[in-house]
């Protein structure tokens, strides 16, 4: 009987727990809030990596699902007076349903057409946030969203709530990847014809990947609304979608760990740019945009598979053995 996890993945997981768990002890309140936002982003990008790296689809509108989650919590708690915990549950479900409906509508699209459809969907959702004033509060947004009971000081305990959720999402995704579901995702990525020939319903699995990504984005969005207390349409548009995309691509779309690492990396770069621009005023403006753009371009040209898969490849090369000798046929 094999162990549940291999030794190598246990070490990686241990390091992750150590870093994520000890982080709050080494920084100011400001760093804690950076850590919380990174965790919220990571939940979204892990879901996005299932769509992009595993199922081989693209979503240029992931921030919309994030926003639907945030607005669900916002509307249910401020307008309906629902308890924040119950609202969070619904905030996870509504984006999953939205993703289901969207993927149902556009499951047959490929490549550039799919990119267009997800882009369009993202715009529509953001426009609705801004225009449906009676429900969403329009451009002014929603204010006074309550924090989650038990985690309402929004400090270290909220940090642990968020990263606990990251860990759950991470483990759940790893479980899926190393199962028949994950193999089905990867199969449709490589060859839809071959996947069909072995009995995989391509459209359904694309749908499933989108639904999972919507679910994760919804959880994150709900928590984001609880954390911020106010939301408006601005962070749920193309800019944020592309940021999520950048995180996934840089870390390595075909790796859940890659999405996590990419999120931390891009988030850290953003913070560094912020600090630098305080000291060098000439860097103000869209310096972070330039950096994100440059990272995307360089990454696709020199490291299209992303950071984590590249590292894995280098490690594998180092210990690569010659092919095992062939045994007699028909053993």
């Amino acid at each position, binding site marked *: 009987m094999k162990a*549940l996890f291999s030794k190598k993945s246990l070490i990686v997981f241990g390091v992750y727990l150590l870093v994520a768990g000890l982080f709050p002890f080494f920084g100011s309140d400001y760093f804690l809030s950076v850590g919380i936002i990174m965790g919220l982003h990571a939940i979204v990008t892990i879901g996005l990596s299932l769509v992009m790296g595993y199922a081989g689809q693209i979503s240029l509108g992931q921030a919309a699902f994030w926003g639907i989650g945030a607005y669900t919590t916002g509307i249910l708690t401020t307008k309906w007076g629902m308890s924040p915990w119950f609202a969070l549950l619904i905030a996870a479900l509504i984006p999953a349903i939205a993703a289901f409906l969207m993927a149902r509508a556009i499951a047959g699209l490929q490549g550039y057409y799919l990119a267009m459809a997800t882009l369009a969907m993202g715009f529509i959702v953001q426009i609705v946030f801004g225009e449906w004033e009676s429900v969403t509060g329009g451009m002014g947004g929603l204010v006074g969203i309550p924090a989650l009971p038990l985690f309402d000081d929004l400090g270290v305990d909220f940090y642990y709530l968020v990263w606990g959720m990251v860990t759950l999402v991470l483990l*759940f995704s790893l479980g899926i990847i190393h*199962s*028949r579901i994950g193999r089905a995702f*990867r199969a449709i990525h*490589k060859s839809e014809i071959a*996947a069909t020939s072995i009995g995989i319903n391509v459209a359904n699995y694309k749908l499933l990947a989108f639904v999972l990504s919507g679910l994760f984005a919804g959880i994150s969005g709900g928590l984001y609304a609880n954390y911020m207390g106010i939301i408006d349409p601005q962070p749920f548009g193309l800019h944020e979608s592309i940021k999520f995309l950048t995180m996934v691509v840089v870390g390595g779309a075909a790796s859940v760990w890659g999405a996590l690492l990419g999120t931390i990396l891009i988030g850290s770069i953003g913070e560094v740019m912020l600090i630098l621009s305080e000291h060098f005023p000439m860097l103000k403006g869209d310096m972070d945009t330039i950096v994100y753009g440059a990272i995307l371009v360089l990454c696709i040209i020199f490291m299209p598979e992303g950071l984590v898969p590249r590292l894995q490849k280098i490690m594998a090369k180092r210990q690569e053995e010659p092919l095992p000798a062939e*045994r007699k046929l028909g053993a």
Partner: protein
Amino acid sequence: MKLVEVQELSRSFGGVQAVKNVSFHVNEGEIVALIGPNGAGKSTVLNMVSGVIPPSSGEIAYRGQSLKKVAGDRYAGLGITRTFQNLQTFDDMTVLENVMTGLHSCTKSGVFSCGLKLPFARKEEEEMKKQAMQWLKLVGISHLALLKAERLSYGQLRLMEIARAMCSGPGFLLLDEPAAGLNHTETAQMTNTFRKFKEMGTSLLLVEHDMDMIMNLADRIIVLDQGAKIAEGTPQEIQEDARVIAAYLGQEEDSA
């Protein structure tokens, strides 16, 4: 007992009639070969019977059931699987994982039992591993099981693809040029493997250019030329058929 029955199958691609009114059948436990000069429509027939391309007209039935309204992904569940002429393997997975994908149609763990690693899903996963390993042993590449598929040679990939198609225990396996790119020893090994499949009760339909293999292996041969069936019979009969000889001599066919 007829396993597969094909009637009046036709297909045109933008005005070009690639297959014209082809009818044939495959009996249970039989190996049938589809041969013909390049461009005769062999692969198109195979693609239609395996559900990759819908026919323009005609009927295909498997165990008496019409396949007309059956979606492409349900063929495997019914017991029809295939391999591809230009390998369709998943080269970022290990060899074992590649074969395990072939068990998709006969496993059923859902997204939550997989994500939460529930006991049922774990047991099924172990079972899949065991079964896939057996098939790798049978085709003779079990020593490569844990390598990424991208490191395999062409011949090994063909064997892996065959194991993937066989591991769900299909009643009918379609092979599109399985021996292409293989050397003589490999071809001989593969011929033996196919005989084993036949003993297990799987019927085979193969498109192939290697005449030695076909004459050795096939129970019955169907010859296509320019989209139409021109002959059908045992290897012996086909070798003596004047129309077949004419079709092949019409062009210089190099059967490597």
